[in-house]
């Protein structure tokens, strides 16, 4: 995937903010929707291959 270029400005870090290793998890993702992919095209085939071989994106790129 190409890198997205976002415009807008990031808020400044409040001086009071602190977190272990500068990362603070706050909540979890909303449960997903289950849908069927069309088994068509090169990117689906790559997805199916990763799924079959239990590979991540970066492992797949090697």
């Amino acid at each position, binding site marked *: *995937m*190409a*890198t*997205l*270029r*976002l*415009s*807008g*400005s*990031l*808020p*400044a*870090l*409040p001086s009071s*903010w*602190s*977190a272990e*290793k*500068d*990362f*603070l*998890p*706050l*909540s*979890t*993702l*909303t*449960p*997903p*929707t*289950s*849908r*069927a*992919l*069309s*088994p*068509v*095209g*090169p*990117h*689906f*085939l790559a*997805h*199916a291959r*990763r*799924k*079959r071989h239990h590979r*991540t*994106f970066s492992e797949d790129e090697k």
Partner: protein
Amino acid sequence: MSDDEVPGSPTPPPTKTTIGLSFGNTNSSIAYTGADGKPEVIANEEGDRQIPSILSYVSGEEYTGTQAKAQIVRNPTNTVAFFRDFLGKGFGNVDPTACHGSAHPKKLGEDGVGFVVKEGEGEEETEISVEEVAVRHLKRLRQSAADYLGREVGSAVLTVPSDFTEEQKSAVSKAASKAGLEIIQTIHEPVAALLAHDAKLLQSGEGDESKHDKIVLVADLGGIRSDIAVIASRGGIYTTLATAHDYELGGSTLDKVLIEYAAKEFFKKNKSAGDPRENARSVAKLTLEAEAVRKALSIGQNASFSIESLIDGRDFTLAVPRTRYELLANKVFASFTRFIEAAVQKAELDILDVDTILLTGGTSHTPKIAANLQAHFPSTTTIIAPSTSATATNPSELAVRGAAIQASLISEFEKEDIESSTEAVVTVTPHTHHPIGIVLGNDNFAVIVPADTPVPARRTAQIPVPAGGDVLIRLAEGVREIKVTKPEKPATNGTKDADDSDEDSDEEDEEVRERVFKSKKVLAEAGIKGVKKGGKVEVQVNVQADLSVSLVCREVGGKGGVRGTIEKAQGMNGSAK
């Protein structure tokens, strides 16, 4: 399935060539993707790339394609047309309307569908099942492909409508197999069209635009039916969100408008003549000519009917300017727009969510249909049609090109591998429910992973930090809202305005609809410290198959960075097994 494989023969059988095949009620086409990776649509012996799905029997001879189509005028009862949608259905469930001007479907046996024609030289009538009709038609297509390519063609990827049932799919695959074409995969027509469009985007080389996340509405406007699919395209993977079907809307609906017009004009000049709409042969001639006029008006501003001996030996000519046609067919054109918009609602989306409308199917050549969509949809929606986009692929060829591309992708695979990759364990996948992105200043929310993205998914975004310093990355789930503003109306509202001035501007006070994203639930925060002046921060979001999220944020070109993981929700169903 083929019987010509000799078991244990010393030389391995030559690799069978796999083609892409589109088999419509109106037309069929064949395509092949060669070594250069570009699909090519194959012309048959007559030079046609759109081969009418018609068979005709004349004095013991079988005619196909364009020659068979011409027989609808002379020999309608022995001409079989518009039969694809009958496959795999019982007689009680078929709609014979489209066959009005050619051989009518008959009930065969218990609940079978077939046609009764004079196949031989004599007067003897034979029953041919619709399956057999399909076999004969597909045999001709296979032969045309083999003749063109100069080698045996043994298999195909076939496009089918997105509402085809398992029975319909298996009936058409069985017919193909009897015709010597093993169907290695059936794929949905709209998805095939999108694949062909994306392949072209990729080849035109403007980055990999085909992988951009986008909502694509594919509108397949055919001969006797039209079908819509609203597709979430995510990193080049397609998920159909909704489909809609209209079995009474297509090119033939537009033919009827022109036929009515032509008949009325004919009457004006020939008051004493019979009604050409009541004579089968005259209707057949008018239908053929109406289609020719429509096609000519897709390119030119003027076209004309020219029919020898329309009725009672009278010739008929009539000039039809495009403006006239567009006026006459106004209502039908409007129903295309309405049908397409209804599909957006069915997908629970707003027209502002649609990034692209890809027009496919022969009737998509019609400029007014594309123009109406352009006027109705927001300017952010790109309409891909011959009249709106110079680089648009011929809409009559999109689906078959997609089939040929898919054929080239999978033809080397083992049958079992193709089958297993189309099974629900692989295709049914959790998709993000809400968009995921980061919270920016002024309450803005920038989407990084859109809603309806299959997981696992990985996206990377960059954002400039002109002033440098310490910044806060707030990863959140967002919601999409449609913001409606009525330009500069004072707060009082609701009653009929008795305002003093500006009656005109009230008319122009069209409400402005905008799509805005808002942050709804913050998932995690990350602090990035000491960003250089004029620096950039990169955020990588990895939504794992188990719905945990890993986040990597760092200054572009800087060292280290912040990493963290958001655990998956506890006790959640629907996660991938």
